[in-house]
């Protein structure tokens, strides 16, 4: 996840996946991520470059403790600071935000901003649009990735090789190429009417994420084949195999893909900006952009509200997020 995550405008999912607009590369690092637990040997449970003996030496201990402390301060200041400031602005009268942004409530706090953002600018309604967007995009991604992974990894018909190649090839196509052709397709679909202002315009393209398919197919590859064989002997067809055996065993990877999917929809801007224009479907990110010039206090409250859910989700599912983020690098690595 390089600067990509923030700066690639993702029409179809490739770009929304951290950095996946670009190249996929050899699998060494994925193997590494599988190996990752190996280091926890009993006598040195979590060692890095510094050994326990190193830590006992005062010079090493105080240098590294000091560096860790400075790092913590920097992280608090740099990563948390702006968000705390945002939280403060949400409850500060506009006049104070503009004249004394760094003072803490010089003239008292207010809930007027929140009230305005919620009741006058109807943040809640756009919030629900984002929820719909995320749910549908999540569903397509899970459906495509699990069934596709099942075909590529478990059923493996003759043509799986070609399909696999065709899916992987899309990893090498930067998201920028898809933007205009996809827009054309949505405005003039070969069947039916224009999908502009229709949630399907964001739901369907989200599914075309080669990154998800690779992630899930590799996970399926790692499931023990004997279980599939046993199921077959017991008379289970491919549908039962998929539904009762493969899916229940794949909860971890489905969790990772789900988290990615939801967060990607939450972050997406350019594509919904182009295709979800009407207030009845506009997601929060697109709506916020149109709010850029309203009263600063109200804007800050709206920004704070829109940040709350992703941050809450992150704090609840932090393990899954961080594992997913590390895995993301590994697949691309």
């Amino acid at each position, binding site marked *: 996840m390089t600067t990509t995550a923030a700066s690639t405008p993702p029409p179809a999912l490739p770009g929304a996946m951290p950095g996946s607009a670009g190249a996929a590369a050899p699998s060494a690092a994925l193997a590494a991520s599988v190996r990752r637990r190996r280091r926890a040997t009993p006598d040195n449970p979590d060692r890095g470059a510094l050994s326990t003996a190193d830590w006992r030496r005062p010079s090493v201990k105080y240098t590294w403790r000091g560096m860790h402390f400075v*790092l*913590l301060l920097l992280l608090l200041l740099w990563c948390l600071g702006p968000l705390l400031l945002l939280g403060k602005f949400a409850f500060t009268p506009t006049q104070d935000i503009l004249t004394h942004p760094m003072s803490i409530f010089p003239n008292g706090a207010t809930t007027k901003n929140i009230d305005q953002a919620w009741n006058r600018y109807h943040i809640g309604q756009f919030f629900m649009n984002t929820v719909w967007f995320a749910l549908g995009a999540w569903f397509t991604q899970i459906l495509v990735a699990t069934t596709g992974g099942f075909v590529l990894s478990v059923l493996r018909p003759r043509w799986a090789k070609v399909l696999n190649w065709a899916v992987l090839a899309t990893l090498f196509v930067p998201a920028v190429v898809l933007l205009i052709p996809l827009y054309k397709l949505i405005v003039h679909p070969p069947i039916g009417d224009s999908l502009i202002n229709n949630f399907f315009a964001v739901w369907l393209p989200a599914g075309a994420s080669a990154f998800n398919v690779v992630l899930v197919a590799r996970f399926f590859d790692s499931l023990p084949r004997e279980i599939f064989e046993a199921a077959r002997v017991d008379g289970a067809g491919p549908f039962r195999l998929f539904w009762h055996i493969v899916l229940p065993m794949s909860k971890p990877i489905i969790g990772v893909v789900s988290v990615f999917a939801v967060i990607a929809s939450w972050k997406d801007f350019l594509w919904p900006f182009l295709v979800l224009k009407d207030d009845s479907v506009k997601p929060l*990110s697109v709506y916020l952009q149109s709010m850029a010039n309203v009263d600063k206090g109200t804007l800050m409250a709206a920004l704070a509200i829109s940040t709350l859910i992703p941050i809450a989700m992150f704090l609840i599912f932090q393990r899954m997020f961080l594992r997913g983020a590390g895995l993301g*690098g590994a697949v691309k690595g």
Partner: protein
Amino acid sequence: MTTDDVVPAAPPAINLHTRSRIRRTPVTWVRRGGLSALLFAIPILFIFGAFSWWPIISAFIMSLQKTNLTDAPVWVGLDNFRAVFADPLLPTVIKNTAWFAALALIFGYPVPLVGAVLMSELRKRKGLYSVLAYLPVVVPPVVAVLLWKFFYDPRPEGVFNTVLGWVGLGPYPWLADTTWAMPSLVLEATWAAAGGTVIIYLAALISVPAELYDAAEVDGASVWRKVWHVTMPQLRGVLFITLILQIIGTAQVFLEPFLFTNGGPNHATETVMLRVYNLAFANLGNNFGQATALSLLLAAFLAVMSLVYFRITRSWSQS
């Protein structure tokens, strides 16, 4: 790179119907699971076909047409590509994009590495550090940009100017100035993305085999030598990948220039991707053919660059 590199040798396929060889007829095909495989492939075939494979082909077609998406498209040969090269803004947007990518590397490449190496030596509270580092990544980009846009208020009362004023610096014009605008954009982009890179490095650091450190200690290596001669070489593969991915990502930067400055002041932050957008969608736009041609050229450039890059780094990695 061949596909073989990307997919490790997979374990043998499950043969759901291991009948002895019978002549292949539609019936045996169905019985052998051919039909169910096809049914399972419907979602991936439909979604990728319609929203990935077809648009890629369609991009090549559109780049050879003049189209505004309402009237019937007209074939114009290579006119769109000629128009791209004749565009007086082309040198500017290329220069700006390269400048963004270069600044993003300077700001955003070494810092996460140092942070991750430090964090990987934590014996406790590693989770707290990771969560803090990753926090900005989950903030929706539009929120981050609008918030930072306010931070960059050029008045002396602006957030950054206030803070810098405490140590006697500024006030700085930030986004309002042609020189300052781009670094300001990159600073925010780095804030928003660095945490992800940190987590990738941390995952790679955890997989450095402990035996290597043990061996280095037997040889009497100091802490710094261990970091420099064991940790760094083990990270080389990941470092190569994140570098090229970051360049590919930043070469397509859109959100920051669009929302912060809309390419201004005086085109100082107009990037290639923003040019694509403006050609196609902005007021006087509807020039979908030229926009597609420009996006294809960018993609081709990135593809060639990645290939060369992997060629070079592969030989380095092996040496």
